[in-house]
């Protein structure tokens, strides 16, 4: 765990307490049972907004708290521990795009509402099942944006889309007739949709440089890795707890060396994942080597969460295969997040290119 300021420690403890008391995995089960395509509890999101979590990276001048990315990441990590469903990550990333690339008018129009929780935003970038921001067919003509975006996170309640077109990023407001949201049910039972824009009114994000999209994606990679870190930590802790109480051959499983060494291996992996993810957050706050740090953070998050979620099921034995047990939620969510904003092979290629080989 990174060494935190007093303010960050308070925020982390608040998040930890709220998640443990108010948002256990049972809450996600209830959301799933409800069957709503939005797949989160609006009351819970309203509480998050009241606690200020929607404004962590938004400047104070625009209604936020300007606490920085390490603070935002710690909250998202805590939410990941109980697979808490919410549009917090999506909205934070939409806000980040406007902070980086918006005009003063755009910031004044959107950031206070994103910070207050009144508006839900999301990124609409990829156009197929693979993260591929270099090939985009979406176009804008005369301020009207046309294109189809695949597997958009948290689109159902979003009224603000940050859309990647071939020539840059645009803000599009959800509107009947020009923005169509079609649900795509994925294994993680969260909000995913194909979003079709048919001549939707679009405003370009003119600032932030030619690499604005890359900058936004770096933030998406790091913040997603934070959710993955919380999940990996929880799977590890749950599995360790299970091994310590499950008895076979008249011994607790944790007393078998074959299992001890597997857990020691995973513990080392988890340490590396935490360092990589926290390193990414610190890079965002200091502005140093962000693209490399982002590729490294999510590549490690992919590698380690993949391993831990797989081993978590195996080490639980048969009970890990049951829907009644929580571990399966983490496995399914893990694969969705691994594929979002860059698979491991995409990220390794990007890391090598950024490093000049």
């Amino acid at each position, binding site marked *: *765990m*990174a*060494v935190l300021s007093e303010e960050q420690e308070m925020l982390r403890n608040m998040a930890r307490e709220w998640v443990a008391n108010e948002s256990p995995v049972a809450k996600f089960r209830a959301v799933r049972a409800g069957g709503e395509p939005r797949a989160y509890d609006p009351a819970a999101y309203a509480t998050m907004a009241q606690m200020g979590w929607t404004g962590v990276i938004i400047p104070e001048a625009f209604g936020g708290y300007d606490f920085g990315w390490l603070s935002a990441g710690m909250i998202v990590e805590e939410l990941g521990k109980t697979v808490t469903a919410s549009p917090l990550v999506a909205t934070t990333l939409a806000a980040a795009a406007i902070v980086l690339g918006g005009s003063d008018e755009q910031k004044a129009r959107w950031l206070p509402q994103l910070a207050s929780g009144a508006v839900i935003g999301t990124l609409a970038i990829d156009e197929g099942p693979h993260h591929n921001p270099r090939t985009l067919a979406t176009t804008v003509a005369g301020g009207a944006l046309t294109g189809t975006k695949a597997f958009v996170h948290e689109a159902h309640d979003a009224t603000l889309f940050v859309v990647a077109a071939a020539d840059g990023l645009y803000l599009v407001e959800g509107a009947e007739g020009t923005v169509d949201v079609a649900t795509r049910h994925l294994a993680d039972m969260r909000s995913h949709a194909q979003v079709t824009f048919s001549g939707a009114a679009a405003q370009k994000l003119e600032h932030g440089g030619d690499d604005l999209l890359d900058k936004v994606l770096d933030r998406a990679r790091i913040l997603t890795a934070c959710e993955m870190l919380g999940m990996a930590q929880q799977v590890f802790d749950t599995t*360790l707890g299970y*091994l*310590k109480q499950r008895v076979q051959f008249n*011994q*607790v499983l*944790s*007393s078998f*060396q074959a*299992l*001890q*060494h597997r*857990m*020691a*291996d995973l*513990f*080392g992996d988890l*340490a*590396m*994942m*935490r*360092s*990589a993810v*926290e*390193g990414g957050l610190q890079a965002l706050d200091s502005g140093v080597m962000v693209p490399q740090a982002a*590729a*490294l953070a999510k*590549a*490690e998050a992919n*590698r380690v969460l993949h391993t831990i979620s797989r081993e978590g099921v195996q080490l639980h034995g048969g009970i890990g295969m049951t829907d009644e047990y929580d571990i399966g939620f983490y496995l399914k969510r893990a694969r969705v997040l691994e594929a979002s904003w860059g698979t491991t*092979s995409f*990220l*390794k*290629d990007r*890391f*090598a*290119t950024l*490093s*000049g*080989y």
Partner: protein
Amino acid sequence: MATRPMTDKDAANEAFRQEVRQFLADHFPPELKGKGNPMAGVESDLRETEAQKRWRAAMGSKGWGTPTWPAAYGGGGLSRGQAAILNEELARAGAYNPIGGMGVMMFGPTLLEYGNEQQKQEHIPPICRGEIRWCQGYSEPNAGSDLANLQTTAEDKGDHYLVNGQKTWTSGGQWADKCFCLVRTDRSDKHKGISFLLIDMKAPGVEVRPIRMISGLSPFCETFFTDVKVPKENLVGREGEGWTIGKRLLQHERTNLSGGGSMARMMGPRLSDLAKKYRETDADGALADKVLRDRIADFEIRWGAFLLTARRATEESKAQGGVSEISSVLKKLGTKLGQERAELTIEIMGLQGLGWEGEGFSDAELSGVRAWLFGKATTIYGGSTEIQSNIIAKRVLGMLDHQ
């Protein structure tokens, strides 16, 4: 970011930085710029040039080779902040720290914690001045991973101990002046029968035989003790406290093995730079062999995550004080990655990377081969990877053995 007004602390740090710069200008021999510390390695004899000797004496008299150790025992007495400034200025001037070895890395910190006043007065200052080389008498032929099975005995003879037995894998034993040693003072209890004793390597009855390794080098020795008389005042802690003290020392050793010391020495140029030198690149400068490129990126990402972990452990230990059981995690990860790197290096170079001696190979190629082979020891010594996994599982994760 807004410029912060200068505080008293900033001013004091700035004054200290100027003091270090002046000291370096006065004392650092320019011909040593960019050279490594001859005392840092266990692989080579200590043969110093006059300039190296002068530089060691200058740093030793300031205590700056051991910057945060207490000034009362010859250390620098610096705060961590000042030590960081000192390191920055050394690096800026291309100067190495001439004070090193096992005395600095392992024995000194342990003696400062467990030694009595007289022992600290006697042994710490010569370490700070780099005058005494220490070696480690831990492993025995039948006490490797099962270290507590050690049988070298120290018999109480009233005013002295009489030591008999054999140690092995004594790093740098042939060049050491003194040995910190685990000995058995009681046969009735495996762990509580062990004591921590300091032995003069020049004493009658001590015999050292270098062992030739697969690397062709002989950095380790067998050490034989035959009726060696050791004064009673050389016992550190109480009789039977050796296992506790000895384990503490191993935490210091592991921290060094994984992070700073030997890992850093094994590191050459970046693998990707090496690959671009030895392998073809395509028009845009990327490696033409895409499978190799992927494997290098895969390694570099994990290596980056490891370095961040080592940094995080340092920051956390600063906040919590002292080394911890996390040292086992770092040792396990760092040594495995170091070996993986050495294997990749050879693969990148092809047969050119397997030269043993003679013509047709650069110095870097030849030393790389020896480093690859020597590196195989890193997952065995200081507690093997398997022992580290036991420590992590039991001490950190609380996974206890069969009851």
